[in-house]
């Protein structure tokens, strides 16, 4: 396929970053904003060491990665930085293809290369995505899988899309939020209908079959994971259970960790349930978003990445990063964002405050945990503001169009 010039250039640059020995990479690896206990490279390496020494990595309570990652990195390739660079490149490529599918462009025609340059740069140069990737956090793979699932879905490739989302759900169970929008994209089309809302058209009867196929892939992956771990189920509790029971209270930019650090012991199970329910299946934004944006399921998927990027249990900057980078493939809504400047400033504020307060608290010993918590609240505000922006714009655009139509 032909790619915009920026793509090749930036991918080369990214590969170079992976190969060159960077100063301070060790600091990045330990940074709590860039990798959570669930995605940390240090823990991945520890898991590989334990596996090499015939110790079950999941007993110790410090390893939460999926067995699939463990087997890939222990048998196929060692965890080299170049793999993260390639994953980034694939992610950018997938984002580009989603955009083309949405615009109805055929891949041969290399028109509008300015927008494509922008999309690639926004993905590959987004610090929220680049830094976690340099820190070798496995959230890079999760993002790439989500983008691949959306790409295959918008190209109408059913099996590939379902396999990709099954992988993503296996790595992070909370990405199951994206399942319904992906089904909807598969049975309708990814083309933008934001400006002309209409009831959902598409064959709803196919959805049960799609769900069946997804379940099949997912079960195969679960089975594979069980075989890898030698028939034991301890990995389920250690990797998936971690997002539900929050055993590790390492700080992250999300709202969960301090809430449960400060929670009274006897209320902990109750609030864990409340938070999980809020975030996942019965999430207050899940069905409403899918219903409201039934005319444009890809946009619904985009909004749900925003929900994930704000409310994940173990949030890293890569999660809001995916949401922010995906804005670039919806150029039609850019003019209608509600308060883009405030959102940008909130993100800037959070991005500067988080590392600062973290260092002050943990390294310098001059601040305390409340300062970092305040910064994570700002991060939550920024995520929420971004979500409101995108939601507003997605609906406001229709009104603008109606008005213009009426005037004609």
């Amino acid at each position: 396929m032909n790619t915009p010039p920026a793509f090749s250039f930036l991918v080369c640059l990214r590969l170079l970053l992976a190969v060159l020995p960077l100063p301070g990479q060790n600091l990045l690896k330990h940074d709590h904003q860039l990798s959570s206990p669930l995605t940390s490279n240090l823990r991945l390496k520890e898991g590989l060491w334990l596996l090499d020494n015939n110790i079950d990595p999941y007993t110790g309570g410090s390893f939460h990665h999926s067995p699939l990652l463990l087997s890939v990195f222990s048998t196929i390739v060692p965890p080299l930085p170049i793999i993260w660079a390639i994953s980034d490149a694939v992610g950018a490529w997938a984002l580009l293809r989603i955009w083309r599918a949405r615009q109805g462009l055929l891949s041969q025609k290399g028109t509008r290369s300015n927008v494509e340059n922008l999309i690639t740069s926004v993905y590959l140069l987004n610090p929220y995505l680049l830094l976690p990737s340099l820190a070798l956090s496995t959230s890079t793979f999760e993002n790439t899988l989500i983008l691949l699932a959306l790409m295959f879905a918008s190209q109408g490739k059913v099996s590939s899309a379902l396999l990709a989302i099954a992988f993503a759900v296996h790595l992070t169970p909370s990405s199951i939020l994206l399942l319904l929008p992906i089904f909807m994209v598969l049975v309708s089309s990814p083309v933008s209908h934001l400006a002309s809302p209409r009831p959902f058209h598409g064959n709803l009867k196919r959805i049960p079959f799609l769900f069946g196929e997804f379940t099949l892939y997912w079960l195969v992956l679960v089975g594979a994971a069980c075989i890898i771990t030698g028939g034991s189920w301890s990995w389920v509790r250690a990797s998936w259970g971690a997002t539900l029971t929050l055993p590790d209270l390492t700080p992250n930019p999300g709202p969960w960790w301090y809430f449960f650090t400060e929670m009274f012991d006897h209320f902990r199970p109750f609030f864990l349930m409340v938070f999980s329910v809020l975030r996942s299946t019965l999430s207050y934004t899940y069905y409403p978003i899918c219903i409201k944006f039934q005319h444009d399921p890809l946009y619904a998927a985009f909004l749900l990445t925003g929900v994930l990027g704000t409310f994940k249990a173990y949030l890293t900057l890569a999660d809001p990063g995916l949401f922010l980078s995906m804005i670039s493939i919806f150029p039609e809504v850019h003019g209608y964002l509600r308060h883009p400047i405030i959102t940008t400033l909130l993100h800037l504020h959070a991005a500067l405050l988080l590392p600062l307060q973290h260092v002050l608290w943990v390294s310098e010993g001059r601040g305390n945990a409340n300062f970092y918590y305040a910064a994570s609240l700002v991060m939550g505000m920024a995520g929420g503001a971004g979500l409101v922006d995108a939601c507003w714009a997605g609906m406001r655009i229709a009104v603008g169009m109606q008005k213009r139509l009426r005037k004609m």
Partner: protein
Amino acid sequence: MRRASVWIFLAYLCTPSFALYREEIYKEDLRIQSLRDGRVSTTFSFVTVLEGASPRNPKALGQRDESQHYALFPLTLGQILREYAITELHLTLNAGKWNYDNWGHPHEAEVGTGAELWAWMGASEVTTVDERWSGLRNALSGLFCASLGSLDSRRTLSPTVAFPLSGSTPTFSPHELRHASLPSENVCTENLTPFLKLLPCKSHAGLAALLNPQKVFDADWHGMGIHVIWKEDTGIELKLSLQAVFNPVRTSPGKRRDWNLQSLFDRSIERSCPVASSSAITVVLPEGKDHKITPENPAHVDGLAIYDLSSSSNFTIPSNIAMYWPSEHSFQYPLPPLTPITPLSVKRTIHGTTQTRGVLSVSVTNNSPQEISVGYLEMMPALITLWMHTLKVKINSQIRSDLLSELKYHPPSPQSNDRFSPSMLQAVLTIPPNATLKISMEVNKAFLKYTEHPPDAMRGWDLPGAVFFPLSQSSHNTSSSYDWERIYTPALLVDLPTPDFSMPYNVIILSCTLMTLIFGSIFNLLTRKWVVMEIQE
């Protein structure tokens, strides 16, 4: 004195049933040694032997136990041992860091800082080993007024290689070890009082009369130990020991290292304990001729001066034993560099500038001209995660992974109520002659819930010291005639990142506000109906 003996004899006559089949022997001993840095090491040991007795078979725990009659053996301890069917028990309560380099190996090997408890128990279907372990530590914490109850599953491990059975192995069932240590435990008078109560003469007579809490707990290093060992040919042996390292240079006005019993303990022995079959004070005579010891005519054996105090001997109790250096005006500390007395010197630290991670580094120096193989045991509470993939073994900053062998690592294992047992790292180190082996690995410090922090959270957490132990001769014939039991490194203090302790309500309120704010805005948007209004002008 003679009247006491008569009473004891009469007492023996009155309890014929018991005296017939079970002999009890009580021996006491005090060993005093001047150290090269001017300090004085004193070791009391009080041994009671129940001849012919054997530990309770745990399989018979459901049945009625035989009645317990003891004349000298402490009943309170005997009841605990029978109740939980303990085969071997070791409890030590120590304060301070034992300075191996200057003081040599201690007379009693267990000098780990804080409380350390380990017990060997037979397995049984009646009650599990863990249930009995829990009962044992609660019973002992009641008996010795120590916080042994907190030696729960978060601190319990089973390092069988480093802590083998000291006595014989009973044949009735396979045996299991439970070991736990609490480095933050303080040792004080309240522990000494119950300790003295276990002695047949309490502190009224015999060597125990010297144990003056005000002096013992003023010592630079002090600790007590309770050891119950079963030996097949003798029986159950209870050894109560108390070690203290005094510093006469610090306490004497002239900065002299002279000592005498009166100055060390501020007490003297008025009478000997009538039931003791042997009672002796052994003074290890320092090298050189410039010291004097009074009274002068004790039995000299291999540089030891032995004073027999037992009632059977015709030796009169010396009112005071003193050692002095007449030609020395004031004590001069030996000038550095000092060569360590022990063949092995160990240093262990955690360094790093942040509260979230650090590097655990252990350096082991072999001071002898022979190669030494030594076992290395690390028992780390789960709040510290060892990153095993960062383990490095170096000599002179050269990686020498071949010197660390037989590596066994048990990550923390989950216990009931979401707690984790400590992680255990065990390896064999081979240290070349006159070389320093450096082991380093990165560690992570956990972020704990605010309820899990102790009331003085800013003080930090005490981590137990590492243990170096000799390898059994059969498996490693490289180890020389160098005879020792165990080396404990000092406890470490780590500061963990702390949350704010006054914030629970604020955090609940602020976090929930954020949630509702986002929810409210999105709900508002999604449920709003959008209509275009024409405004008539």
